[in-house]
């Protein structure tokens, strides 16, 4: 698999910031080995936004936490390769990883309520990250922090920096979280569902903010989400994950407008429609796969409505590779169907109004 082209959108001239190759993340538990990520390969260039979508347990958060080295090494098995800005992280010392955190790659967590220390002032918590990587006085770090809070649109940043997390509203806390993520001008920003806890208007503001900041700093963004509306708004590339593997990876236009994988069809189909007519929500039947006993062959086959169109029960026997299929130039997908484009145009497109 590592022989495959690492990225479907090989843009020349841009510097590669992240290269993940055949990444596997496993957690030994009392019930058995949890295979959270099973051979994930992708890469990201500076200035691009990659959205990783998929349901809970698809491995999107776990794989991104691995990029930050945030898994407890005593309780996690990681293999494969993660090259961040030229440094191999798998097998690297804690000290090497520590120095890259926040300065090269920063992470914005999904729950800003619990992700800030409840007993410490917001400004101090952000300044602390700056102080770790810069030899400056506390005063300089605090000035920088206030600037950053101002940049992410927090009014009265001077005063706000001296407040505690519980004195912030949800949206303001998420902005502060972003300020924390950007304080060291990281080249890669990983945002783990940065807008799930927020209402729609604040959501839009936060996404705009991320877009603006990316334009300003030119950093790369990995956006983890299950909200496809968010993806359409900000992503350049989209990677759909299922059962710890990428099942479809291409530009946002390719994946959202002409998806080739039945799981992506299901995801798009289950987006609620805004209409007065009501009706039932459409779902993907079945449950997410057990990560301890992944289904044989294609992990999605027990839930796939189209597996009977593949001759010889191939879907349950053989795992399809993540490859560029006929009719595509850059997008890679992982499906045995001979003509997914035909099926999509004939049967699926009309249902996705």
């Amino acid at each position, binding site marked *: 698999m590592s022989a495959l082209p690492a990225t479907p959108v090989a843009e020349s001239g841009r510097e590669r910031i992240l290269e993940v190759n055949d990444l596997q993340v496993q957690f030994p538990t009392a019930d058995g080995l949890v295979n959270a990520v099973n051979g994930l390969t992708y890469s990201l260039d500076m200035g691009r936004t990659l959205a990783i979508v998929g349901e809970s347990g698809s491995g999107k958060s776990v794989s991104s936490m691995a990029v*930050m080295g*945030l898994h407890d090494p005593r309780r996690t098995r990681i293999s494969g390769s993660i090259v961040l800005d030229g440094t191999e992280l798998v097998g690297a010392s*804690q000290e090497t990883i*520590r*120095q*890259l*955190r*926040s*300065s090269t790659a*920063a*992470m914005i*967590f999904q*729950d800003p309520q*619990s*992700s*800030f*220390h*409840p*007993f*410490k002032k917001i400004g101090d*918590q952000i300044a*602390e*990250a700056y102080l*770790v*990587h810069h030899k400056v006085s506390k005063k300089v770090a605090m000035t920088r922090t206030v600037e950053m809070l101002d940049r992410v649109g927090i009014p009265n940043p001077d005063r706000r920096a001296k407040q*505690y997390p*519980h004195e912030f509203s949800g949206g303001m806390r998420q902005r502060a979280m972003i300020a*924390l993520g950007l304080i060291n001008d990281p080249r890669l920003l990983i945002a783990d569902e940065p807008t799930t806890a927020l209402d729609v208007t604040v959501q839009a503001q936060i996404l705009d903010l991320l877009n603006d900041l990316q334009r300003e700093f030119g950093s790369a963004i990995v956006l983890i989400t299950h909200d496809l509306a968010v993806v359409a708004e900000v992503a350049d590339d989209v990677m759909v994950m299922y059962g710890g593997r990428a099942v479809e990876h291409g530009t946002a236009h390719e994946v959202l407008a002409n998806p080739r994988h039945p799981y992506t069809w299901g995801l798009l189909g289950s987006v609620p429609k805004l209409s007065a007519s009501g009706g039932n929500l459409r779902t993907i039947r079945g449950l997410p796969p057990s990560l301890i006993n992944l289904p044989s062959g294609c992990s999605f086959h027990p839930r796939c409505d189209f597996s009977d169109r593949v001759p010889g029960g191939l879907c349950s026997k053989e795992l399809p590779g993540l490859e560029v299929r006929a009719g595509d130039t850059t997008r890679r997908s992982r499906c045995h169907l001979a003509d997914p484009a035909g099926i999509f145009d004939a049967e699926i497109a009309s249902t996705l109004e």
Partner: protein
Amino acid sequence: MLVYILRRVLLGLSVLLAAIVATFCIFFLGPSDPAGALCGRQCTPDRIVQIEKDLGLNKPKTEQFVTYTKGLVAGNDLGGKKCDAPCLGWSYVQNRPVTDMVKQAFPVTVSIVIGGIVVYSTLGILFGMIAARFRGKPLDRVIVGVSQFVTSIPYFVLAQLFFLYAMVYYGLIPRAKYTSILDNPFTWFTGLLGIWLFYGTVLSANYVRYVRASMIDVQNQDYIRTARSKGLGERKIAISHALRAGIAPFLTLLGLAVAAELGGAIFTERIFGLQGMGNLALTSFDTSDLPVIAGVVVVGAVIIVSLNLLVDLLYGLVDPRVKLS
């Protein structure tokens, strides 16, 4: 803030009043014969009447209660014996003000408890953190095992053994001796050091597992992950982030425990022969010296109420989310 403190003080006072009423009812309305106890062997009915008159025991119970409470606030004049406020009554047996006896015993208990707190907080937090850090490893098992073993043996048994073997038979540790810190701080320290180490070490066993559980809980919090994602070192995370949150609940526990211990470290004082509040209470139980028992109870109530208030105020300092209003 000021309103909060004022309200808490008023609330505390009402609790104290209730405690005084209850104490009075239990000890002075019950079937006791203080005059007979005071009278001694060559007792005549006349003498009993005289003593009852002196102590005001011939008056109605309600009047006695008013006198008792008034004594606490403003002092009293008991049958010609002057008793300054706060007057806790007059000891039947020792024939002196209870307040004096408490004043003598209290510093002893305070000395024992404060030294003990220093030792058991330090050991409890230290070993609790170590156990949490090495969770599941042999070191953790040893620490938890030892602490479980120690807490499962009654304290008075351990204290007896320590006294007999370490102090008496082998003389490894000098016997406990109390001198006032005001008279001689050095002998105050050396005289109590053995007790502090013993008492503190045994009690720390209770806190080791508590701190360990609290630290493990904190380790899994999202804000620890955030701290790590900032690039902070593990030591900084453990001390500045995890410990700060981990010991907050410990503070509440500590406040309540201290209050209870100040009321009388009974076993410690009895076994090591120190004349503190616990011993005072025990001696007066033996001699049915009701005013002294009641006095110890009232003083204990005052300590518990004020330490509770102190802990709440301190908690507001540690956890900014706690609004004191």
